[in-house]
């Protein structure tokens, strides 16, 4: 986050009915955990660690919330893609 030029980010819309609840957060965290550096979920200027269910839940993202997904290290681009795909697929619900 300190080096915005080196981070990649993407805007995403939460489409699943339940929003980012415990199970969807768990799926996201499971992927983010493999990242080399920080993966961040940002809603209304508030950032949460995408590798922590608790932190994700603390953002309280309901259906139709727009969030920004950010990575600190370009090496984690694949992680970013996978999480983006997961969110867009509605977490397979």
């Amino acid at each position, binding site marked *: 986050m300190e080096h915005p030029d080196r981070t990649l980010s993407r805007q995403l819309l939460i489409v699943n009915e*339940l929003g980012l*609840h*415990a*199970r969807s957060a*768990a799926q996201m*965290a*499971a992927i983010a955990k493999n990242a080399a550096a920080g993966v961040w979920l940002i809603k209304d200027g508030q950032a949460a*660690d995408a*590798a*922590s*269910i*608790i*932190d994700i*839940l*603390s953002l*309280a993202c*309901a259906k139709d919330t727009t969030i920004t997904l950010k990575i600190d290290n370009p090496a984690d681009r694949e992680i970013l893609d996978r999480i983006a795909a997961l969110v867009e697929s509605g977490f397979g619900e």
Partner: protein
Amino acid sequence: MSPEQVGEIRLTGISASSGICIGKAYLVDRDGVDVVKRYLVPKERLNDEIKRFKAAVKKAMNEVRSVIDRTPEDLREHALILETHLVLLKDKMLYNRTLDIIEEKRFNAEWALRTVVGNVKGMFAKMADPYLKARVADIEHVSDLILRNLVGANSIKIAEIDKRVILVAHDLSPSETSQIQLERIMGFVTDRGGKASHTGIIAQALGIPAVLGLDTASRIVKNDDIIIVDGSEGVLIVNPDEQTLLRYEERRIRYERFRAAMTRDSHLPAETVDGFRLKVMGNIELPEEVVSVIDNGGDGIGLYRTEFQYLSRSDFPTEFELYDKYRDVVEVMAPLPVTIRTLDINGDKAVSYMSGEGEEANPALGLRAIRYCLKKPQVFKTQLRAILRASAHGNVRVMFPMITSLSEVKAAKRLLAESAASLEKEGVPFNRGIETGIMIEVPSAVVMADVLAREVDFFSIGTNDLIQYTLAIDRGNQEVAHLYHPLHPAIIRMLNHLSKVAAKTGVKLFMCGEMAGDPMNVPIMLGLGLEELSMNPRSMPVVKSMIRSLNREEACAFFRKVLEETSSAEITRLIQDSYGGIVSKKFQVPVDGNEW
């Protein structure tokens, strides 16, 4: 245990229930019922502590996995939450933060985890979304799993205490006390509370020692420390040396021998030397306590507190549940009277489902007892119907608490009549002539006693509250607990006024407060012309024995002298001078100390 070893520590608090016990401390956490140890880990053991935490998490994960594996295929949907728990166990905010705290602050793993969980819980509690708010339960569950593996096989909930221990707590609320399996508790030690606090009363009823108002005990005592509780002297000794241990063990045996000797004569009637018979009754809270009233030769139940059935549950008890409990007591005591006091819920005894109705700044002066019941006539009528039903099985009296005015008595009696009429209509048997009485525990009721007497069969003086309200002393506050004087001349004058009203109107006069259970007060009780004294069952043998050694005529003359005194100190001295001899001869435990 904790790494820092300390020598013998002696603390002085309020003696809330007499007796001596020696045993292991069981610490109840400040926040409630979980027990979490807290200590600093020495630098060289930090790595071990981290390993210990990791192992506990790993074990918890294995446990969750095995539950998932054992879940049948068609129920796998339900196992999804367990998958979430699995991930939560290793969640950064939980797992990594705890490790950070162990390393940075050198807290033990249990305490570090607790700190982290506390923060997370705080974060979720603020959320508006009910779904997310409810996730706290998942986090708590997961942290409980880890905690259980950290502290070993021993359970961590107060309700599951499975060994004989001495309970040490910052404070115990009635709902916490009601969760404890009391037969497993040897004694109570708390930082807060006084003689007449709920914990103190429970301890007296169970006849186990309690030292309360110790301020710092819960911080000084560690789990499993050997402690001595001297409830007679109000002393707590932590980590006693061998000599102290020996001395107290001897005192404990002497005390118990004395107690046994007292109880031997307790079946004899409480009759004075000059043939006046005073009834000695028991105060009970649980139906199980009836046994001790009978064992101690009680003449009935002078106060059956009914709050317990309303505590620690999420709904109100039904008429049948209540009836069932009351009937148990009534049948066992018959034909002796059982005085059932209607619901006296107050701030200190708040029921979970009532708490949503807003916190009161001053619960002792708030919506409690009869005020609450008159505001919730349905709740009240359910209880009244249960009491009336029980009256078919023995000798039942009904008693209304916290009466302050004539209109309250009339309103309560009207609801009682309505309840009776509804039972009548349904053809349910009950005693139509049920005796009705009120607690006299608010100064306004004392002043209005002559008027109130026209409405009821009996008055029962509740001295605990009467003293609290008259002297403006919060009996649970150790800052002022020493100002709580039952023998304050203002109280004596009030009692004298009630005695005169009773003589003039024919209303029966009883007492059911703590004051009635102190043998030193017996001469005053005789002088007042009370008909019944009701007390915790353990006090009955001593009070009865005192009554048997006194002369009523003399006591009446003595009481006139008491009325002339102008301070509690003078009154205490007068009793001491006139009756101290009898008391020490009769009740003093031989050899050192003058404990009872």
